[in-house]
């Protein structure tokens, strides 16, 4: 076990919880804003775009940290199939976090719609208007958004399963609370 950390580094834990909160907010804001014509539509979509772009920057930083600092190992007694599932699901979560904002931006670019964020920051278009590209990106943003929510639910369920049913150390690896770095004799 030498070298492998027992917990995610504090910065990784901070980013995980900050981003978890923001991603869940993004998913709810997304489906909320497209189903209203009320005045709140405008602040909601402004937050959606601004936070979405901020999350794109954050996930890149997070990925860089992940590659440098690594992750604690999963419990040794976890069946290999479950371990693979855990790894794949984390990979997928990272994938969604990167792809969703790009789809959102691309969809607006392909609609010749200016992307103006909070504070009047304007992101220049990297794609020309195209009906076909807009339709593809729009559908991908909508359906992958729903798939993202389903995966987040699965992820939360798995985390709770580790914490409450298996009562192993998986939740402690990412727990936001500063805990004592304990040596687990069972390992």
């Amino acid at each position, binding site marked *: 076990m030498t070298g492998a950390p027992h917990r995610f580094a504090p910065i990784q834990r901070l980013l995980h919880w900050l981003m978890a909160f923001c991603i869940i907010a993004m*998913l*709810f804001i997304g*489906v*909320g*804003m*497209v*189903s*209203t*014509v*009320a*005045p*709140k*539509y*405008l602040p909601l*979509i402004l937050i959606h775009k601004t936070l979405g772009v901020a999350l794109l920057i954050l996930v890149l930083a997070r990925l860089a940290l992940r590659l440098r600092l690594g992750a604690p190992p999963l419990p040794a*007694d*976890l*069946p290999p199939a*479950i371990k693979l599932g855990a790894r794949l699901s984390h990979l997928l979560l990272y994938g969604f976090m990167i792809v969703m904002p790009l789809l959102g931006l691309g969809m607006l670019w392909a*609609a*010749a*719609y*200016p992307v*103006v964020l909070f504070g*009047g920051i*304007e992101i*220049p278009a990297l794609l020309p*208007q*195209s*009906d*076909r590209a*807009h*339709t593809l990106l*729009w559908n991908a943003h909508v359906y992958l958004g729903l798939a993202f*929510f389903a995966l987040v*639910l699965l992820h*939360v*369920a798995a985390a*709770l*399963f580790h914490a*409450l*049913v*298996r*009562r*192993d150390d998986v939740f402690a690896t990412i727990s936001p609370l500063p805990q004592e770095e304990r040596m687990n004799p069972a390992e």
Partner: protein
Amino acid sequence: MKLPGRPERSSLGALILIAAVLGCSAAAFAFTAGWLSPGRLTPDRMIAALTPPSGPPLGHRRNHAKGICFTGTFEANGNGVELSRAKVFVQGRYPALGRFNLGTADPNAVDATVRVRGLGLQISAADGETWRMAMINPPVFAVSTPDAFHDLLVAAGKKDPEAMAAFIRANPEFAAFAAWAKSAPWTASYAEEPYNSLNSFVFTNAKGDEHAVRWSLVPAATPVPITQAELDKRGPDFLEQDITERVKSAPQRWTMVTTVADPGDPTADPSRAWPESRRKVQVGTLVVQRIEPERDGPCRDINFDPTVLPQGVSVSDDPFPAARSSVYRKSYDLRASEAADYPRSGAAKP
């Protein structure tokens, strides 16, 4: 303790808790998405109410479906700077792109059957910052709220005349628009119409002073009244032929006039005009120099969303711009996805 796959009795509570967390999260998500509230006024329901019984105009705008593109220049005279720090108010010339249109969901409507005429406009500053707007020729809007607009569409779509009568009883503000529709003279040209923002916006100048405003494009061409029957005789697409010919022979102009609200004026209700005595500032001139058919024209791909605003202009307490933005977005999503039903003529863009 840690036997996977064989939860102990104490785990049962935990499993129920997990199921409850998932169930509540999914329910909250479904509620937020409106899946549990069929009564919520969504962009989809607004679009459904706009859709004629014969079906949606595939590939076309879901409202103001018949139109023709123009390009030209906005010539700012500099007077607007006092009211708003929008860059396009600084004296100078700015590229303009727009669309003359008819307020109908039928792209093949006969001109003389459509009362409301509109103009979509985009003005671009030197740095690319854009201002989009979509204005119409009546002096007031038909209703006070987006909900009432939905009610109007539903009532107007019913065969039963009692539906419209009930709508008018519930929305007495409709009378002003109805009076205009009945008695205002028709013209035989897009160039002879005024186009009014109707919705109120807030202008902010360099000092940070804020003013609620509305604006109008007032035509330089003198309106020549014509009866609806005479217009009908000129042909189903006379307006497009007329504007094409007029612009070919000379650029057509409109003065952009901003009206500044006094405190207490009804900024949140586009069905109520402001008193004539309100301060008016001429901020520039729209010059239309070129007309192109919509099918391959530059206005086709633009969503003239009235909330695409430059720095120095923002929405007010008027609920319409937000509602319009959400519905125009959906209309754009749909018409772009149906582009194959309204193919471009050249091999240009897919």
